[in-house]
């Protein structure tokens, strides 16, 4: 590692619709170092990366490359300055050859420029050789495995003369062996003087690969340390070390019978393995985990969007099959999805029609809708949940995010569910609406509804849940009681354990390799 400062971001702030994603975050990268960037979901990692790659513009703060300020950053500008990012899912043109993929955006762009196929192939071969990748440049990119595609992307970045290379969870879907190969390439690049920003949820791999680590929390950069000086518990402590200031209106409810029980359910399509979970009437179970841990996938499984292909689902002790959302609804299961604009409400439909959409049977006689009754029902929910809308006939598209979320909730409350699954119910909505939704959850629990709440916000999980189920890598890791749960414990579980045997055994050799 040299001491040459390559990239410096100072006091970067960015907010989306009033919600702060970054608050005066600062970050520096030296030439020839691997700098790990870690934090919980929503800590601001992605936003910081987007600011550096020019995908979004910061509201405030400065960005310097080699002590030169970058103004008016844009993806194009960042690329020309040698900043490249590689994401978890490689972005390839599967129908084009490896050489063509590497050449994209590197060659001159004159309209009539003749393509020099030989030079293109030679160049691709050189770049692949430089990172030690044994890949035929003539192959179609679509035929490559995912790790191979990543290497091609790295070669492409090198071809564009990248000085700063950002790797966003590159090992998330790699096998141990492929990850080790990738690390080898990363070290080579580091030794060649490239500065690498490395984002990963796999804390155990950081000591092998990172030189320094910066922890982000709630949009702020908390601390930066040489990797050798911090251990895993310390990192987790830094990530979650906030004060629990928010007050949650949690009421104690004596839980009733078990309403929903999962016994070893699995789904290959959803990447879920052997998940067991039970929810009692009147209980709120928080589902914690990192993005990609399988929480939304589990909700989709319960709701029949991607049906289970193994295990048992029991409703009040009786085994049931759920192959489709309509079957889930018939059983009294309701699911308020995460992406409300996309799936929670139907934007063209009137607010009233959105509210009754999942319970049309309840407002109709012999198949004919009772529009008067529909109006009454809709007006009732608009009043009870305090939905702010010009009229119950206004299309959902005209409402604000918090109000759309309340409409989505109303739709499912109108089905009178016995199990209610809420996926990030308060994400991106303002404080007032958030408190109202929490209050509503309490009321529902008091009425005996069994609630499963997925949330990436630890204070919300800790504040609202009776029990907390932690998922990691498609598995249920452990279920904690409210009294035993702490932020530290949940994150320890969510980040998973260091691989025990087999894959973990390679660690010492790699350490020596450094």
């Amino acid at each position, binding site marked *: 590692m040299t001491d040459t400062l390559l990239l410096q971001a100072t006091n970067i702030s960015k907010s989306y619709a009033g919600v702060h994603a970054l608050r005066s975050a600062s970050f520096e990268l030296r030439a020839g170092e691997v700098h790990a960037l870690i934090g919980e979901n929503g800590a601001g990692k992605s936003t910081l990366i987007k600011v550096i790659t020019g995908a979004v513009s910061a509201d405030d703060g400065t960005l310097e490359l080699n002590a030169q300020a970058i103004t008016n950053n844009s993806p194009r500008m960042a690329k020309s300055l040698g900043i490249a990012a590689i994401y978890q899912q490689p972005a390839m043109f599967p129908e084009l050859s490896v050489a063509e993929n590497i050449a994209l955006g590197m060659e001159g762009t004159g309209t009539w420029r003749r393509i020099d196929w030989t030079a293109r192939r030679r160049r691709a071969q050189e770049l692949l050789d430089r990172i030690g990748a044994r890949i035929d440049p003539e192959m179609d990119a679509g035929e490559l495995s995912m790790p191979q595609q990543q290497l091609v992307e790295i070669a492409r970045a090198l071809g564009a003369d990248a000085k700063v290379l950002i790797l966003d969870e590159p090992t998330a879907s790699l096998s141990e062996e492929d990850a080790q190969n990738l690390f080898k390439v990363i070290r080579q690049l580091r030794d060649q003087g490239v500065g690498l920003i490395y984002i990963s949820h796999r804390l155990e791999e950081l000591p092998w690969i990172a030189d320094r680590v910066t922890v982000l929390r709630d949009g702020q950069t908390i601390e930066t340390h040489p990797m050798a000086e911090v251990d895993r518990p310390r990192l987790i402590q830094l990530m979650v070390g906030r004060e629990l200031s928010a007050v949650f209106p949690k009421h104690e409810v004596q839980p009733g019978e078990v309403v929903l029980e999962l016994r070893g359910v699995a789904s290959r399509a959803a990447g879920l393995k052997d998940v067991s979970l039970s929810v009692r009437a009147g209980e709120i179970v928080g589902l914690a985990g990192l993005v990609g841990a399988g929480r939304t996938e589990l909700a989709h499984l319960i709701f029949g969007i991607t049906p289970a292909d193994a295990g048992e689902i029991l409703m009040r002790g009786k085994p049931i099959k759920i192959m489709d*959302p309509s079957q889930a609804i018939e059983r009294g299961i309701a699911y308020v999805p995460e992406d409300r604009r996309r*799936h929670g409400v139907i934007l063209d439909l009137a607010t009233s029609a959105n509210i009754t959409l999942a319970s*049309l049977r309840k407002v109709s006689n012999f198949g004919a809708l009772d529009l008067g009754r529909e109006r009454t029902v809709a007006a009732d929910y608009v009043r009870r949940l305090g939905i702010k809308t010009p009229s119950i006939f206004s299309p959902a598209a005209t409402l604000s995010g918090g109000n759309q979320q309340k409409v989505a909730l109303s739709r499912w409350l109108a089905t009178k569910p016995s199990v209610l699954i809420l996926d990030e119910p308060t994400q991106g909505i303002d404080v007032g609406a958030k408190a109202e939704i929490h209050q509503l959850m309490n009321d529902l629990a008091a009425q005996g509804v069994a609630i499963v709440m997925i949330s990436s916000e630890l204070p919300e999980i800790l504040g609202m849940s009776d029990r907390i189920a932690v998922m990691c890598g498609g598995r249920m890791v452990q279920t904690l009681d409210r009294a035993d749960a702490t932020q530290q414990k949940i994150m320890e579980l969510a980040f998973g354990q260091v691989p025990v045997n087999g894959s973990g055994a390679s660690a010492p050799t790699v350490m020596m390799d450094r």
Partner: protein
Amino acid sequence: MKLGRYKRELSVLLAYVGLLVVVGVIAPSFFGAANLRDLALNNAPTLLVAIGMTMVILAGEIDISIGSQFAVCSVAAGMLAKVGVPIPMLLVAVVVIGAMMGALNGLLVGWLRLPSIIVTLAMLVAWRDTLRWATAGAWVQDLPPNFQWFGLGQGVGQWLIVIIALLLLVAFAWLLRNVRAGRAIYAVGSDAEAARLAGLQPRRIVFGVFVMMGAFVGLAALLNAVRFSSIPGNSGSGLELKAIAAVVVGGTAITGGRGRLLGTLIGVALLGTIGTALTFLGINPFWEKAIQGLIILAALVADVAMRRVDRRTRQNLAPQSEAAQ
């Protein structure tokens, strides 16, 4: 306040009234009873087909095979009549034949998830050529006397056709608004995945609208066939464009989810009147298609413009309602 919801229909109605006023001033004979009756009669089959098309488009799909379905149904009606099938059974048979052709489209689009424009393009060609091969291009002639006007005579028969079309329009306008399936059509057309997450079954809805479309084509073919003494093998060609144009001009969003049958009625009337109006105005009727094209374009531009305005008022509204919390 309430009229605001119908502004799209009102603007087309305004255009139609404008056309009628111009024709009325220049050529008052346009409003002669015989002419109006002919207009209504000529457009009744289009209206029936347009009812089905409105539902298909509301559900977010399209059917361009209806012209060929229409020809198949027309020829089938004629041939069945010639072998002596009584009128009520004939009616059922033709509607079922249409519905079955629609069901084939519905299966391919709803269950196999094939894009409806390609599926129905294939069917447009396939039915047309199958029919040409089967009939060798011959017209169905020598229809039995009780086939024409259902044996009721022109006086009663022609009004029966117009009344059936209008009754069905009113019935389906009510159904779209007042039954669960109608609501589901709007939801699926607006966002099929979101509709599925609300427990609706988009496949069944898509299948259903194609079946209804086919049934309407069958009925329209029969009501059209009884007006003439013989049935050409190429009847119904270009019908899909007429129907789609009327639906779009009537304010139904081509992307699905928004629109009403009231608009479709005005759309059919407007596009169906222009040709006759031109004749009365002394303009070469060859201009008809060009003017129809212009109206379709104008309707689309008006749609985009109105959505822009809506979005702008929405943006001005949304932050306020957020702040109000």
